[in-house]
């Protein structure tokens, strides 16, 4: 290994790149040793500079400059937000009381008596209409009931006539049967005598 192949600065800075032979060469080479010594003196001199203290603490998330704005704090606070909303509502109501447009009732030439008559007429009209509607519905219900009653009577009459016919037919049957029995009985009685 030669002097030119030795990276003395990397060696001095703690990152030797020349392999195991590098250290041996430096140990044996006077000029390399001297150069290395100068580099180490330079480093030592550089390191005599001490770090300066930070004048003030660097601000970070916990420091004041990163504190949220008042509106951010309020937005995150439920009670404060509720209070603000209530205050806003109160202000709105108060303002509304003063700036609300006044409703002006302009005279149209109609007197109170006329209004009352109009109201009474309208009420009468509506009541009459409702009564007529209810009466019509009642009449319709009565008509339907009469129809149903008539149909029921008709059905009952037909059933009654049918029953009477059946009864008459049954009576005639028993009557003929009784006649036959009587004749047979008389014959048997005469033969026996």
């Amino acid at each position, binding site marked *: 290994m030669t002097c030119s192949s030795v990276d003395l*600065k990397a060696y001095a800075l703690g990152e030797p790149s020349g392999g195991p032979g590098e250290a041996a060469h430096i140990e044996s080479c006077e000029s390399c040793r001297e150069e290395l010594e*100068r580099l180490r003196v330079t480093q030592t*001199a550089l390191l005599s500079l001490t*770090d*300066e*203290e*930070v004048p003030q603490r660097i601000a970070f998330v916990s420091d004041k400059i990163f504190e949220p704005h008042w509106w951010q704090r309020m937005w995150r606070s439920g009670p404060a937000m509720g209070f603000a909303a209530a205050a806003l509502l109160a202000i709105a109501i108060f303002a509304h009381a003063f700036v609300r447009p006044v409703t002006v009732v302009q005279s149209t030439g109609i007197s109170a008596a006329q209004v009352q008559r109009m109201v009474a007429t309208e009420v009468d009209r509506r009541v009459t209409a409702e009564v007529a509607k209810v009466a019509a519905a009642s009449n319709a219900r009565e008509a339907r009931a009469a129809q149903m009653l008539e149909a029921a009577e008709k059905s009952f009459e037909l059933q009654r006539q049918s029953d009477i016919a059946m009864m008459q037919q049954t009576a005639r049957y028993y009557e003929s049967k009784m006649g036959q029995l009587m004749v047979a009985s008389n014959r048997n009685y005469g033969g026996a005598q």
Partner: protein
Amino acid sequence: MLVSRWEKRVFNYILRLVGNREDALDLSQDVFLKAYQNLRKLEDPGRFAAWLYRIAHNEAYSLLRKNRPEGEMAMEPSTANATARMYPMELSLAVERALSRLTVDQREAVQLKVYQGFKFDEMAEILGCPVSTIKSRLYTALDLLKESLAPANTGRVS
């Protein structure tokens, strides 16, 4: 937690780049705010330091670009006045003077390697450059610093 662990290192890194305490403080706040906002985008937690310094690098360079024309980016920052009161010792003054003669890129490479202890590949990730570019900047800076702080004839600090 995030701030308390890293604020001093990040603040000093930015301070030595921009050379102004107020700007460094403002930028540090921006860095931690952006880091906090984008923490979910960090895929590998093991690369957090490089990721954080990448944000710090971008913030510092945004300010430097805004404050200076493009051609003057390599000019030395005004750290000497700002830090002279803080480092009264002769050695510290010599180091300050030597660092102020470097370009911003060279000084940042020294910052990341010597003061922050990053590896070459991490520096490449932070600065968005190939490792070869990082080494070139750093080695040039070390040669300049070495001439000021450890001259060949004495081997000691001037």
